[in-house]
């Protein structure tokens, strides 16, 4: 079974108001040496046992649905299950 992690991040030129809000709260935690916070999404996908072309399919899923290429970038990481790797 393959497990795939897709990370989706707003492009650097797109303002991330959520990240800005978190950045603004940090001094209240006593943290004053952070210059930027950006917030994204992590999506975990589990494929069926016999799934083929897992990475290719994951790229399609990420590009067509999970990320909006107008505003977001994504990265795909395929993790093999421990049993398969043993």
């Amino acid at each position: 079974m393959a497990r795939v992690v897709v990370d989706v991040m707003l492009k650097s030129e797109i303002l991330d108001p959520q990240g800005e809000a978190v950045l603004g709260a940090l001094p209240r935690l006593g943290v004053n040496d952070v210059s930027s916070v950006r917030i994204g999404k992590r999506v975990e996908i589990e494929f069926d046992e016999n799934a083929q072309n897992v990475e290719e399919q994951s790229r399609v899923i990420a590009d067509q649905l999970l990320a909006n290429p107008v505003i977001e970038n994504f990265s795909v990481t395929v993790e093999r299950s421990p049993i398969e790797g043993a």
Partner: protein
Amino acid sequence: MSARVGVVTFPGSLDDRDAARAVRLAGGEPVGLWHDDAALGQVDAVFLPGGFSYGDALRCGAIARFSQVMDTVKAAAAQGMPVLGVCNGFQVLCESHLLPGALVRNAHLRYRNRPARLRVETSRTAWTRLYEPGAEVVFPAKHGEGRYVADEAVLDRLEEEGRVVFRYLDNPNGSMRDIAGVTNEAGNVVGLMPHPEHAVDELTGPSNDGLGIVASVLAHLTGAADTSGVSR
């Protein structure tokens, strides 16, 4: 016979009834369409209303893009059928790549719910042809994800080609270049965040400026505005 304007209901649509009412008040015949309809029936135009289709899961409009009805709407839009998306409908049009750009979280992170003053920048669309270019209108705005963004090259092209249809006079969400609504190259597909369908009578809305949207498309469909409507 009055023109038939299809109003799509997705799971989570909220403004479909007001959209249908606006169509009726402006002299058109509203036709209800369902998200999994595979055919548009005999409609002459399509109105994608506001709301929270599919609970805004993932991104606003991202799931609605894959609905059955959107396949048909995309095909019809490519053939020139007028399509209007308001609020969530605008988000659906952007996610479906029928319009450029994207709508993201308001810069101040707050939901904005108040009348918005807009300038109609062009009458060269199916949905604005009865407005005087430069006319000011007031439509209610109510959204949390209404900040229009696109890369600079796309924005420049929209400006050059006269495809910015509405601009905020008091930008409520941080939209780039104060853009409230845009159109496609052909001018038949228009999306905007504020709600013309909530501005169709003085009793329930801040103005009746929104009647011109449906009136424009009715004129477009009959060709009447070619001789009478657009004053320059």
